[in-house]
């Protein structure tokens, strides 16, 4: 009895030798994928842990997300944009923004932890630099060339595309997040939040597939060939998963919600992917932020809530941890245009059935002069350390370059 091929490479060799077209299927499910997954040595890890990262791009105004409504300083610093009405209290000092009802529900269920006042020393107020610091987990005075999740892949995944059929990481959006930059190449798959994944099957695609099947030898040609095949196969598989997915809850129409719906579909289909990255833009609220920030937080809360409900209904919730981050918080003092300028620390959310829930860390001190910045109380790398160590079971110290004190998150 012939043994099952163990790697993609072996598939290629065989199909080239036997003349059996690897990608000769047209539209039908790529059946060899199931085999390929089965043939992987460790077998499908049904209970593996998954991390979903939500980027709030532009710098989320933390003080208007989690409002210190008992603190007069808050209203002193924000005479016009400070929020008073319809707040959703968390305790006698802090309240959610009125748009965050769904997040509050999760908080009450113990499925949402709020890490307060997260930042880093010597904060940088440039979007790009501060995003880079967050995504590479570097200090503000040092430059790291790889992302924190990229280093996680370097430390855990095999790296070569032919070894593993499913992508190591998936991102929604055109450009690979800096968090994924790695020393070695990993299979990273990107797609848009809406629309078809990959190209429609057209006659040029059929020709392309035929060319992909010829023997390309070794080296870069083989690398290209395998990545192209993996991409085709993954595109088709993902398209099929997404179109066939039955969400157990209604997702709002926002880009973020649609992104998370796709993530839910892939998780439900038990892809071996451990890390997903989605992004919500628009948080750079320099002017007239009242309505726009409310809309953003409304979208965020509704999307996260739908995602969590859907995962729970599919019994995947104990496998998934979702965390938010933003490159910085905003200035405690409002500016002259009904908005806020770039600041420093802000709260972030960690969601999932396994989280301990509640408030973590200390709230910021608002006894500040006008236009001064918050002093962070929890270093963001403590969050990363906890996630890497406690959730992804990875060598956090190696990945982050030093040890950080874990937080009681999971």
């Amino acid at each position: 009895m012939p043994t099952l091929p163990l790697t993609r490479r072996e598939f290629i060799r065989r199909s080239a030798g036997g003349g059996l077209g690897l990608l000769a299927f047209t539209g039908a499910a790529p059946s060899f994928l199931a085999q390929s997954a089965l043939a992987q040595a460790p077998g499908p890890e049904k209970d593996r842990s998954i991390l979903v990262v939500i980027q709030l791009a532009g710098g989320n105004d933390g003080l208007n997300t989690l409002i210190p409504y008992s603190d007069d300083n808050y209203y002193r610093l924000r005479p016009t944009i400070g929020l008073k009405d319809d707040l959703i209290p968390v305790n006698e000092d802090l309240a959610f923004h009125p748009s965050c009802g769904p997040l509050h529900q999760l908080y009450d269920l113990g499925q949402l932890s709020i890490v307060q006042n997260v930042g880093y020393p010597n904060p940088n107020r440039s979007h790009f630099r501060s995003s880079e610091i967050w995504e590479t987990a570097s200090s503000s005075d040092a430059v790291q060339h790889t992302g924190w999740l990229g280093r996680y892949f370097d430390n855990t995944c095999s790296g070569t595309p032919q070894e593993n059929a499913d992508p190591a990481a998936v991102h929604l959006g055109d450009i690979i997040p800096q968090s994924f930059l790695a020393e070695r190449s990993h299979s990273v798959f990107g797609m848009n939040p809406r629309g078809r994944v990959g190209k429609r099957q057209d006659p040029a695609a059929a020709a392309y597939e035929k060319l992909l099947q010829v023997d390309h030898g070794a080296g870069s040609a083989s690398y290209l060939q395998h990545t192209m095949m993996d991409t085709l196969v993954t595109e088709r598989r993902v398209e099929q998963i997404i179109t066939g997915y039955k969400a157990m809850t209604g997702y709002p129409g926002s880009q973020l919600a649609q992104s998370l719906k796709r993530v839910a579909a892939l998780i439900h289909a038990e892809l071996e992917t451990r890390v997903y990255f989605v992004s919500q833009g628009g948080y750079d609220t320099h002017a007239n932020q009242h309505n726009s920030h409310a809309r953003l937080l409304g979208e965020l809360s509704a999307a996260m809530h739908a995602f969590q409900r859907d995962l729970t209904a599919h019994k995947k919730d104990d496998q998934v941890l979702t965390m938010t981050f933003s490159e910085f918080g905003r200035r405690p003092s409002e500016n002259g245009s009904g908005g806020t300028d770039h600041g420093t620390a802000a709260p972030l959310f960690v969601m999932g059935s396994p989280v301990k829930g509640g408030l973590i860390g200390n709230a910021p001190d608002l006894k500040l002069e006008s236009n001064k910045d918050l002093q962070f109380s929890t270093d963001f790398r403590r969050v990363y350390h906890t996630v890497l160590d406690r959730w992804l079971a990875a060598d956090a110290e190696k990945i982050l370059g030093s040890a950080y004190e874990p937080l009681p998150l999971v």
Partner: protein
Amino acid sequence: MTLPAPTPATFSVDDAWKPLPLHVWDQEAAAHLLRRIGFSATPERVATALKRTPEKEIIDAFAHAEPLKMSEALAEYRDHAPANHRMIQRDIRDPEQKRARRNELREQENELFRDFAMSWFQHARQPENSATEKFVLFLQDIFVVDRRTVRDTPALFALQQVLRAGIKADYPELCKSVSREPAMIRYLNLDQNTARKPNENFARELFELFTLGEGNYSEADIKESARAFTGYRTRQRYEFYFQRNLHDSRQKTVFGESGTWRGDDVIDLTFQQAAARTFLIGEFIKFYLTDETVPEAYIEALGEQWAARRFNLAYLIETFFQSRLFFHPAYRGNMVKSPVQFYLGLCQDLRLDLIPFEGRLLKGMDVMGQSFYNPPNVRGWLYGEHWINSTTISARRQVVDYLFSPLNEKSLNANDQRDLEKARQAERGNFLITAEQLQVLLEMEPARIAEHLTTYFITPHFRAAYQPVLAELLADSPTPAADLRHAVIALLQSPAYNLC
């Protein structure tokens, strides 16, 4: 199909850098040279090259290049920028007005940056400029500066010009010029480096990324050198200025040599280190020859010759591209094209003008992973296989699809219509492949077409394997025009076309 890479045992170090013997200067050798030194090897260029020696061809590849011209709008912006910024900083009191004026200036600068990007692609696409601009890309990946940090188009333009002129310079002199460029001064914080509060950023990158590579200097060397680079400032935004009272004129010890060194002295000391002879050559090899490690003995041998020529870059280029090692069969057709080479090479191969739509072209480069002047970090792009992942592969395929799809002019937005109008006025409206252009090929037999296409577009390694597949696609076709179009698209999306 893939040959083992040469080692000193199989291919002598003495021979490695000798010029290629003329009797093996054939069509494939010429095509290899043209694809590596520039972006493509069209049959006309190959034919011309074969009438010359490799040496003459290499010199010629750079000889007819023009420097990129600064647009009038950018020159005007540059002339007024110092006064404009001063005014915002000093004269406008009202913070709202300050903000509004600053945004206005930023908008203007953004637009100028996009114009700069488009004009660079336009310029580099011209075959006579391609070798020069590819070398500029190489140097930009050494002297990394990014647009995100340096939001100042005239400064970025000026640095690029210094690099372009550097092609003929001695490398140490180029390092000195770059250390005086406002874009670099801002990017690596030289303007925050003072005797009282040294900033080590520039000194560190000078050693690590420009000249020696990691492990060839000590932290103490960095600290001492940082003091030598104090006092580097700009005035009127774009002019270098040495501010004596910020300079630390005391004694420093760098690489064991003590003296009251200034920045230029440190650069001279750096080039006395053994690692300076090999570091740039290693980077050059990664950029132009192969992803894989090349035995150190080869690099050292060339380094020695290079150092004896005062580290002259023209010497390095001419020696490298003529060499037997460069033409070694193991190094042919094994490099992943960068997004810039993929796209500009496509335009040259297909004789197309640049896509005139600013948004589409620049976004396309972003998604393929090589945003103009915006590398991911100070280390620059990593080249080779690092370009390739599912996102960038899909983006490359989409570029090809786009070039073979008809343009729906009615669906263009106002900006695109403006860009199209501008391109047509400049007689650059030919940016898509039409059905008629492919028609001529149909007069040939399928096997002939397959041979023609593979000879034209890809390196020899894959021709034998690709030809029967293409011929089969075209054989007995009820819709030959459509099938031919699909076959060409597929070929341009294939692994082989992504290599050079």
